[in-house]
């Protein structure tokens, strides 16, 4: 039986989903196939939800990367700075939307022009004005709630949903923001209108947070020509000169290797797997990997480093504790052009504090009086921030020689921080601490958790197949087409030339919608 389709997508996260939907809705006769290496896990399963709220892990967590030090490591940090893989991506049908927090922030105008402005990173081949309409569409699809009065890049139309109000402790911290000259804002969060604020956002029992899995199920029902295959790991893309014609993949359910052919291939496998697949796709025309004529694939790996400050307050007289599962207080007052040279900073409330594990203390045999003392006694409040880093040619993601789970090659990340980062981060940590001190907090200089520059964690990995105008310094063009390959596109955080200071998912979603539209309208029908 011939396995041919008009369009083949590798990956099943938000990027692949939004490209597929855009194309299918515009041209329902298209045959579209999607291959996903990971398995499918149920959503809205009563038992799983109860297990989760009673303290067990959602099933999808079993797909997280196993790092060095675990019994079967499959992801390795090789550089001078330890790179953390833990909990950073879900390898399952639906991708990392299975666990994402829904933070949906637009990049700002200057993020697209970093090199021109401050000679760091690279310029995007598109501007904020180019992507703004796609941000608006993405916010609609993901159902983003925000406050139109908050700081941020210009927007033509208001947020589709209202913002979530600050919790009482966040209002308290916001006063510190104001005292220190920052403008407090509301975290733009993706939640559908039916959200009942269960506080179990990592496993929503009522589908009130966007997941690609739900979206794909709706598409598969609506379009008979759309086929999804999970537990199918793409091993390489088959190329013939300047064209690709299919993929070779491993069917994990049978153990057999098969080929699938397509007129257009879209690589949407994230910032780790996308470059790894390209580098493993070697032909006489592409001896260093597909699209890698200029040694750009898998380079410029970057993510966000988190800064954390915790301050102690003498009492918690009203018994505050976290009532959402996400922060709603943020500020973009340090996410500004004047900070771009050193790395912009995105500041937000630490959602874990104040914290007393009420049930845990009861289970540990504490009496009511003891628990009241903990609940109303001294408390911690915290602030977190992402600091922007810029891609460096020598920071790479490469496939290892061994095979990990799901038939995927092991992952090797070589990353070393810029020499100035610790100095810059130290200043920012002091500024963050000053906010909490302004409202009465005390930061213990001997407490290693008082002010912390954390290790880079892979959640927001980007830059490994960056887009650009110059084929010798980038992997794709402005329309995400791989340079010198006629019909291969990349839709992933991998194409970001800079990571900015905020979460990448909304920008990725906007790029995916834009790509789907481009393929339909600017390439002769897309196939």
């Amino acid at each position: 039986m011939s396995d041919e389709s008009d369009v083949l997508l590798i990956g099943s996260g938000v990027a692949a989903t939004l490209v597929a939907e855009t194309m299918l809705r515009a041209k329902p006769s298209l045959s579209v196939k999607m291959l996903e290496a990971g398995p499918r896990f149920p959503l809205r399963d009563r038992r799983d939800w109860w297990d989760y709220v009673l303290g067990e892990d959602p099933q999808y967590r079993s797909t997280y990367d196993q790092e060095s030090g675990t019994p079967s490591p499959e992801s390795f940090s090789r550089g001078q700075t330890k790179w953390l893989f833990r909990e950073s991506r879900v390898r399952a049908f639906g991708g990392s939307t299975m666990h994402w927090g829904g933070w949906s922030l637009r990049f700002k105008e200057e993020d697209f022009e970093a090199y021109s402005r401050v000679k760091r990173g690279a310029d995007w081949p598109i501007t904020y004005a180019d992507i703004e309409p796609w941000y608006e569409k993405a916010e609609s699809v993901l159902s983003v709630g925000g406050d139109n009065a908050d700081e941020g890049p210009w927007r033509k139309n208001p947020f589709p949903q209202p913002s979530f109000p600050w919790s009482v402790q966040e209002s308290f911290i916001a006063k510190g923001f104001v005292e220190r000259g920052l403008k407090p804002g509301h975290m733009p969060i993706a939640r559908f209108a039916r959200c009942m604020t269960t506080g179990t956002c990592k496993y929503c029992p009522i589908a009130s947070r966007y997941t690609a899995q739900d979206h794909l199920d709706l598409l598969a029902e609506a379009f008979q020509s759309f086929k999804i295959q999970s537990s199918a790991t793409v091993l390489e893309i088959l190329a013939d000169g300047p064209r690709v014609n299919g993929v070779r993949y491993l069917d994990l359910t049978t153990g057999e290797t098969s080929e699938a052919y397509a007129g257009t291939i879209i690589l949407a496998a994230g910032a780790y797997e996308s470059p790894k697949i390209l580098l493993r796709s070697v032909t006489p025309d592409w001896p260093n990997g597909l699209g890698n004529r200029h040694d750009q694939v898998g380079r410029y790996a970057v993510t966000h480093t988190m800064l954390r400050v915790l301050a102690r307050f003498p009492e918690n007289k009203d018994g505050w504790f976290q009532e959402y599962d996400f922060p709603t207080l943020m500020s973009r007052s340090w996410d500004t052009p004047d900070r771009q040279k050193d790395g912009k900073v995105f500041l937000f409330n630490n959602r874990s504090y104040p914290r007393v594990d009420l049930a845990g203390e009861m289970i540990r045999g504490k009496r009511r009086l003891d628990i009241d003392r903990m609940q109303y006694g001294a408390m911690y409040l915290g602030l977190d921030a992402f600091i922007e880093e810029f891609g460096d040619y020598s920071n790479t993601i490469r496939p290892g020689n061994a095979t990990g789970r799901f038939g995927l090659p092991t992952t090797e990340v070589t990353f070393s921080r810029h020499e100035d980062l610790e100095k810059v981060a130290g200043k920012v940590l002091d500024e963050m601490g000053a906010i909490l001190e302004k409202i009465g907090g005390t930061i213990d200089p001997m407490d290693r958790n008082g002010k912390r520059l954390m290790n880079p964690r892979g959640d927001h990995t980007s830059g490994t197949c960056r887009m650009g105008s110059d084929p010798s310094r980038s992997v794709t063009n402005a329309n995400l087409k791989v340079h010198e390959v006629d019909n291969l596109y990349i839709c992933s955080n991998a194409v970001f030339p800079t990571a900015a200071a905020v979460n990448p998912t909304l920008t990725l979603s906007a790029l995916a919608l834009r790509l789907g539209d481009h393929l339909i309208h600017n390439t002769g029908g897309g196939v």
Partner: protein
Amino acid sequence: MNTIEYHLEEIGPEILTGDKSGLSDNALTVLWEIFIRVGHVWELKVNASEMRSRWFDMIESRMIKDSGDYSAEYMNAVTVWRYLEAHHSQDLDKIVFFETIVTASSSVKTRLDHAKFFIINDFIKCFILLSGFKEFGGKNYKGFMGGSRRADEPPIRTGDIL
């Protein structure tokens, strides 16, 4: 000759398997009694009857999978509780809630350990998340249905809007 009391009988750490025919009304009554005792012991003055349907949903959902089916653990908890009521009624709360602390499966040895680790610990968590947290302040909690984001009253405690 010393005889080991029923609740201290060692039965190993693995989750119990056995009769999966379901819980009788009497067994459910005892389990509910254990659940509401959590509220009494920690003086959580919430209306427990309003939690009953969701508490039952938890019980039911933890008996519907072949792997990790809690049916036999529920029955063990019922028999342990009945035994302690009959033989240690004065010290029941102290024995169950304050002296038997089991927070890791590797520490589970006796029938009482099983009842505490697999059932009563979960009842404590369930009691807190279904409403017990309100006794410590707050309107919302992980696992509680806080309410619509569009409601007139926010589903959480809020402060000043700056």
